[in-house]
């Protein structure tokens, strides 16, 4: 029984991580209509920034700030140099321009840090695990990630639904021109939203460092899963990103955890493991196909 709970927590942790990326992606798309493939690169830049500062200074706090700063700066530069020219362009141009950004970021990081993955240690304060249930010791660091993720989710919810900036973001999503005609500089708002999205991606990256490998292209692997989350949740909706992320996080983790065991009854060990690995990595895509059959606009469509 405790194994199931442990996997559920892992699923929740992966879900929360996905939410940090999906929230930024769906906000940027929902309000500005821009599909940004390089969002994964910001995740990578956050991870490398934190890893680099941690290696140089050894201080956890500076590493966190370093990661966030790197992602924010990369995000702002990306928005000013490239994305600002893409708002009026069609999706094909946006896809290709941001695809080019991926190439630039990946190659740039390879030159700076080489191809070998960096090792980042878990901050001492959060090392070890804690007894949350008799017989179940769960790593403190992963609990911290869940806590941070849920806090960010709450913060985002309050920002979007309780503050004036949040109102303007929602208003801009439906009537961009009208918001300008009432005296609000919408482009400034976009840059702020983009910066927030970049920060969230950087935060996810720097938190992922200790548990996943910090390597070139790490952003792209999680980016595609984030796309699945945004499609399932409903493009442009924060609530959709949150629930979509949790669903995908739980489904993906539990498939990887329980499928091998199940299949082992039917076939030999090695074959079962290989097929289980394949099926579980395909699982979330099948889930997406099912959701699309039932609700083409996703579970929580934004502007309805």
């Amino acid at each position, binding site marked *: 029984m405790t194994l199931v709970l442990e996997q559920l927590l892992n699923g929740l942790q992966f879900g929360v991580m996905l939410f940090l990326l999906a929230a930024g992606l769906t906000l940027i798309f929902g309000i500005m209509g821009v599909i940004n493939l390089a969002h994964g690169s910001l995740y990578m830049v956050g991870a490398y920034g934190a890893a680099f500062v941690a290696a140089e200074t050894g201080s956890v706090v500076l590493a966190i700030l370093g990661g966030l700063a790197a992602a924010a700066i990369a995000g702002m530069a990306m928005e000013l140099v490239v994305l600002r020219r893409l708002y009026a362009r069609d999706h094909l141009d946006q896809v290709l321009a941001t695809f080019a950004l991926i190439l630039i970021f990946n190659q740039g990081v390879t030159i700076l840090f080489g191809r070998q993955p960096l090792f980042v240690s878990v901050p001492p304060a959060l090392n070890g695990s804690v007894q949350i249930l008799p017989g179940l010791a769960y790593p403190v660091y992963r609990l911290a990630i869940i806590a941070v993720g849920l806090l960010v989710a709450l913060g985002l919810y309050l920002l979007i639904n309780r503050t004036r900036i949040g109102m303007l973001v929602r208003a801009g999503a439906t009537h961009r021109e009208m918001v300008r005609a*009432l005296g609000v500089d919408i482009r400034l708002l976009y840059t702020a939203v983009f910066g927030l999205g970049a920060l969230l991606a950087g935060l996810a990256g720097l938190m992922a460092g200790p548990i996943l490998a910090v390597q070139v292209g790490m952003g792209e692997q999680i980016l595609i899963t984030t796309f699945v989350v945004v499609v399932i949740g409903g493009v442009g909706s924060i609530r959709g990103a949150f629930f979509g992320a949790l669903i995908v996080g739980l489904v993906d983790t539990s498939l990887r955890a329980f499928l091998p065991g199940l299949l082992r009854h039917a076939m030999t060990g090695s074959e079962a493991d290989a097929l289980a690995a394949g099926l579980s990595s395909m699982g979330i895509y099948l889930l997406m196909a099912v959701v699309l059959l039932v609700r083409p606009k996703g579970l929580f469509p934004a502007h309805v």
Partner: protein
Amino acid sequence: MLSVRNLQSAYGASQVLFDVALDIAEGEVVTLLGRNGMGKTTTIRSIMGLLGPRSGDIRFEGRAVAGIAPEKIARCGIGLVPEGRQVFPTLSVRENLVATAANRLKRPSPWTLERVYALFPRLQERAGQSARTLSGGEQQMLAVGRALMTNPKLLILDEATEGLAPVIRAEIWGCIEALKAQGQSILLIDKNINVLKRIADRHYILEKGRTVWSGSSADLAANAELVHRYVGV
């Protein structure tokens, strides 16, 4: 306050405005009359910078504003109530009023939520509801309230009573008269000639993208033939 001289603008290939000229002084209520398709809304969109004018001169309190960004023009002190109302559907009534509220010109007694609710009690009843669920008339009041909350020097009302039930129309006219009494300068686009004659000080008639006539309410009253030719059925 606002002066427009030989304004021309077009949507892509088709030119709509050929020569529009009008003036609005402080505290004055002016109307823009004309049949549908004569360019009334295009004139407003050009003044607000939502449609870059092809040529012509637009001055607000002496400052040239032709072609600059809509938010910059709005900040000079123009509040727009657009045709079709365009309230923010996913925001609540209160949020619609508060989101873009501002007092950039530091007006002495600025518009507050309470004052708007006093003007439109119905909005207070629905403060928490999302704007999408409001009826046509209520959305109109919300759009007017939203513009007032930016404390504009000039309020532009584009087809403010169009398609509303008579009782609601009368309520809106009452509010516009109250605003006039408080010295608010207003540019009105509407069709109800009789009401406009009573409320407004001066009128312009637009025909095929040109201002073809202007005059006071008295001149308009004396000129029934004019009304019929350019405005009536």
